[in-house]
């Protein structure tokens, strides 16, 4: 009976896509816990550990992430053209990944991690299994959300030059975002939040500047992390 046969077939297809989704979710949750680990490393930066030490440890774990994304890409190769069918299962994890990578990239280079660079770091290939641009942009917004806290803690630790640098960076990023036309969606909401991060960093910058605080003079302790730069 053709009706039964068709539904029989559907059941197979849905079972297949169900188990595919199961596998995707497993990888996604591995990505998620790996991300937690990296995040956990990076959090030490707020406790004034030297940047190079923190970065080294965190970068050591990107390899694992990369492998997980390769795994994901392999799974998706089984169902070409269906990237966006399952996209929801790894979106939010990937956004967090981007935010962490971009933060590390900023710590290292004081510049924005570009979309293509992010793909490269994760071993993604645009044509097969790329990084969705909206996910990338949301990830950047997430990173921005962490900067005020970073600046506050750096200044507390005596790193008085930090606000100036972060402010410059964040202003550039904000300006770049303003080129986009967004819908009333999640990305827009996140971008709206970036304005508040910018303001908070400005305030800290002002606090430091108005008091004439500079690295040279009265700061002592926390300079170790700066050798690696400049």
């Amino acid at each position, binding site marked *: 009976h*053709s009706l039964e046969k*068709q*539904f029989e077939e559907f059941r197979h297809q849905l079972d297949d896509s169900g188990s595919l989704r199961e596998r995707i979710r497993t990888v996604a949750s591995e990505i998620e816990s790996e991300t937690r680990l990296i995040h956990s490393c990076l959090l030490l930066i707020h406790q004034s550990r030297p940047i190079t030490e923190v970065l080294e440890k965190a970068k050591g774990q990107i390899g694992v992430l990369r492998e997980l994304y390769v795994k994901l890409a392999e799974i998706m190769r089984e169902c070409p*053209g269906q*990237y*966006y069918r399952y996209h929801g299962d790894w979106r939010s994890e990937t956004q967090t990944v981007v935010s962490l990578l971009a933060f590390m990239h900023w710590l290292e280079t004081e510049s924005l991690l570009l979309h293509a660079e992010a793909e490269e770091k994760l071993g993604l290939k645009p044509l097969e299994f790329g990084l969705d*641009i909206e996910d990338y942009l949301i990830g950047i917004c997430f990173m921005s959300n962490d900067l005020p806290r970073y600046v506050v803690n750096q200044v507390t630790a005596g790193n008085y030059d930090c606000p100036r640098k972060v402010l410059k960076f964040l202003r550039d990023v904000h300006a770049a975002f303003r080129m*986009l036309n*967004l819908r009333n969606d999640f990305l827009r909401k996140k971008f709206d939040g970036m304005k508040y991060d910018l303001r908070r960093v400005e305030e800290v910058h002002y606090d430091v500047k108005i008091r004439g605080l500079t690295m040279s003079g009265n700061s002592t302790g926390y300079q170790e992390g700066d050798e690696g730069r400049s």
Partner: protein
Amino acid sequence: TDATASAADSDPNPMKDAFSKYAAYLNELNEKRERVVKASRDVTMNSKKVIFQVHRISKHNKEEVLEKAEKDLAAVVDQHISRLVKELQGTDFWKLRRAYSPGVQEYVEAATLCNFCKTGALLNLDQINASLRPLSGPSVEPLQINVLDYLLGLADLTGELMRLAIGRISDGELEFAQKICSFVREIHRELMLIAPKMDDASDMKTKMDVMLQSVMKIENACFSVHVRGSEYIPFLGSEDTNFSLLGVPEIE
């Protein structure tokens, strides 16, 4: 990317370049989404018209009504689904699914309804997809309706079949109604097994509840006809006994 910007200005800003690209991407995506939504709305509206056309069926006008319905359905494909086909390529089928899904579901509803009335059988997904293939061409990928939209359309179909069944009973086409009843029961039974496996199961779950209501409405109508028709009437015996209209199986 670098080459273009670094020419004149003293500020070869890779970030700015990159964001111009992102901006262009987002603009194109949003505009395409808008076009797809519009095409989908047209598909919906015109498919609904086909469905109403099918409901104009009666005992005597079956061929002509269905012929017109099929013609209209073909027009939906030619004029509106073709627009979807033009827009949707590669990953768009899933990325923009939310934008076109309502239209496609309604089309499935209309196409399967027509087909059932004509052949008494379920129009397969493969058949529908095959019928859409002519819209594609060397540079245009064929539109492949996915299982999910097909099944969601099918779920709605049962509501239309319920309306049809009630109408057919009124028109005395009891066998047709009976056939619809079995058909809908079968779809319900099959979908029940599949429903929890759908990508978005919650959507389907509410449709399943409505579907069970539809099945039961048909069953209750059949029950009513049967019970009434089974009644023993000792003093029956007048001129016109064409009570086949109520499907009485010649008083047991």
